[in-house]
């Protein structure tokens, strides 16, 4: 197993380098320049020239590439042009923000998706199954940015309006969430419990917007995998032994049906990161998705490279994770 892991990680290195090399050349060849935003009639061309020189942009492309590669290998991501800070210092914070969002979304995806899938499989072809199938398809086909806007409209803006009109409706507070940002105004003065609650309120809508489509996908997989297991002989044996239906479903069937679902865990990571670009933009969440879009638009080359690296590394890790989990959960799978 250890050998397998090492081989996989080593195999991922040329993959990552390949991606980063392609991105490096695409962004450098494309028109536009990080100094473009300083250009105005009051700044003399000589100053711009000096800036380009300071940033090392006047050197030939292959020299820039080798320089970037060398510092990258030593673990130095460089200095963000846009934020004027070393990337090594700001990246962990941004990454952690996105991870919070992604992890909450991931938990939501699997809990909701699995529950719906189990219900559907146990009551196959019932009314509930058909309705849930259609609802799942509906959410699966929904653009996440539109769903995010609709969530804001209902649970933030309209809820606020209603609350303002009917101050006595205290219960409405449960359905009212902030529309953007990570923290409320008085966040610093809250106690620990208050901070957690505040963060949860801020994370809820983005996580739902991010996760609902994938939850529908998980539900579909779960239904299929559960149905496959339910029709196998050992389930009939378990029923014949006189076990309660609950024990049959949750102890015997579910465990086996989970095997293919677990691999999804790693595979959803890239989807979530893609989705995070839109959801973070809408909810004003300072994470990777927004960072990479801003970096690209500002031609902040070191930042683009660093965020691309993190995203690609997370995708590779996700794939690895799903393969490893698969081998761990199912002893029939061999890694050799």
């Amino acid at each position, binding site marked *: 197993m250890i050998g397998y892991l090492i081989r996989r990680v080593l195999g991922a290195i040329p993959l990552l380098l390949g991606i980063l090399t392609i991105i490096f050349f*695409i962004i450098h060849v494309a028109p536009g320049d990080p100094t473009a935003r300083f250009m105005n009639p009051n700044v003399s061309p000589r100053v711009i020239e000096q800036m380009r020189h300071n940033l090392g942009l006047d050197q030939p492309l292959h020299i820039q590439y080798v320089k970037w590669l060398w510092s990258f290998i030593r673990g130095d991501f460089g200095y963000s042009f846009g934020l004027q800070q070393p990337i090594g210092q700001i990246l962990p914070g941004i990454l952690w923000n996105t991870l919070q969002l992604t992890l909450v979304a991931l938990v939501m995806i699997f809990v909701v998706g699995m529950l719906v899938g189990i219900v559907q499989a146990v009551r196959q072809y019932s009314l509930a199954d058909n309705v849930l199938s259609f609802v799942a*398809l509906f959410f699966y086909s*929904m653009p996440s940015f539109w769903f995010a*806007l609709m969530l804001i*409209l209902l649970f933030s803006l309209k809820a606020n309006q209603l609350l303002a009109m009917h101050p006595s409706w205290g219960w409405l507070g449960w359905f009212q969430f902030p529309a953007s940002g990570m923290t409320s105004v008085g966040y610093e003065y809250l106690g620990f419990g208050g901070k957690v609650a505040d963060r949860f309120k801020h994370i809820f809508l983005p996580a739902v917007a991010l996760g609902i489509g994938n939850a529908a996908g998980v539900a579909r997989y779960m239904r299929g995998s559960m149905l496959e297991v339910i029709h196998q002989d050992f389930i009939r044996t378990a029923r014949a032994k006189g076990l309660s239906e609950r024990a049959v479903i949750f102890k015997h069937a579910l465990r086996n049906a989970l095997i293919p679902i677990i691999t999804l865990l790693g595979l959803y990571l890239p989807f979530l990161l893609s*989705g995070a670009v839109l959801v973070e933009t809408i909810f004003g969440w300072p994470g990777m998705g927004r960072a990479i879009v801003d970096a*690209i638009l500002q031609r902040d080359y070191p930042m683009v490279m660093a965020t*691309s690296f993190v*995203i690609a590394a997370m*995708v590779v890790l996700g794939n690895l994770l799903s393969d490893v989990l698969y081998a761990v959960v199912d002893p029939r799978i061999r890694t050799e």
Partner: protein
Amino acid sequence: MPATVTPEQLPPEPITQPAVPVPAGIPGRRPATQTEVLLSAVPGLGHLVRGEWVPGMLLLFGWGFTLSLAFLTRAKIGAVFTARRLPIDALVAVATLAVTALLLWAWAFRDLAVKSRRQKRLHGDSQWSIAARHFRKNRLAIAGLAVMLLLYLVTLVTPLIAPFDPAEQGNIILSRYLAPSLEHLMGTDKFGRDIFSRVLYGARISLSIGFIAVGISITLGTLIGAFAGYFGGIVDGILMRFTDMMLSFPRLVLLIVVIALFEPSIYIVVIVLGLTGWMGTARLVRGEVLSLREREFVQAARALGMGDWRIIFRHVIPNTMAPVIVSATLGIGQTILTEASLSFLGLGVQPPTPSWGNMVSDGRDALVNAWWIATFPGLAIVVTVVAFNLLGDGLRDALDPRLRT
């Protein structure tokens, strides 16, 4: 002791039934009478007289709808032929109307006069006719197909049915942010433009981008997958490593990287969507080709001295088409979603041109007091993508023998 076997001991004769029943003509159909055929001058009437309610009503409504559309828009249709410069857009719309009406008519006649007289077929069923039979049983998939056809039809006749010009700005004080009403079915936006008309025109953009981009990615994916699978060895190694590399990067981020660097325009969006969507198809086709390569018919083709190219294009690729069609159908839905996301971020179709994505983006600023601006284009996306997903699922169930029930 001689082993005598009495008839009772024999296992019962297995009831041999063909796996798929061969249709015996068209069951329960008597040939149409002369009057019924004559009644079909109004499509559907002949069917109704025979008591075939469903096709009869569908034909009647379809025909009536087409005719009344032509009648209601007669002013616009007339303008098409008197205009000094020939408006291609509107001409296509008129032609579509005419062709639809004629097709409905022809189908009604054919269904009654020809099909009912046709003899039972003697030859076997092809893979496609079996699939078609399974597909027809799946009501949801048929609904998806119907919605899809309707959407493409609407994109063709848009200039006739759109009540306003999508770029026409109304009176900035009187007609901006109007709530949905009978005049403006989906309300107006901040420039007083009619949302309903813009949604209709947006359908053209979204559907054609989806169609063309998926066309590009399917072609590319099939070729790459077929070459990798057929030639194997180093070709396979290089092509598949490249595929893995493209796959290990979130598509939306890749798209943003590429598009943000050029001037965003419809053409760039289509091309880039096409060039970043082929990986799934390539893997799918490669898997199929790996097993097809060893089949007898391919070896026979090789033994006959056919070249590799001919084998690939004539024998291998046609046999991989079933899963490719499914993935293309599902892919169009996904591509429409992706295009909408890009336009929402301002990297796709650029503002004066209406696209569902940038319309939702417009509505974002006025979410509280004009919810309709963002809501309706989004609903249009959902309906379209649901239709493509239903159709794709139905095709998958029909085309994959393991999934047929």
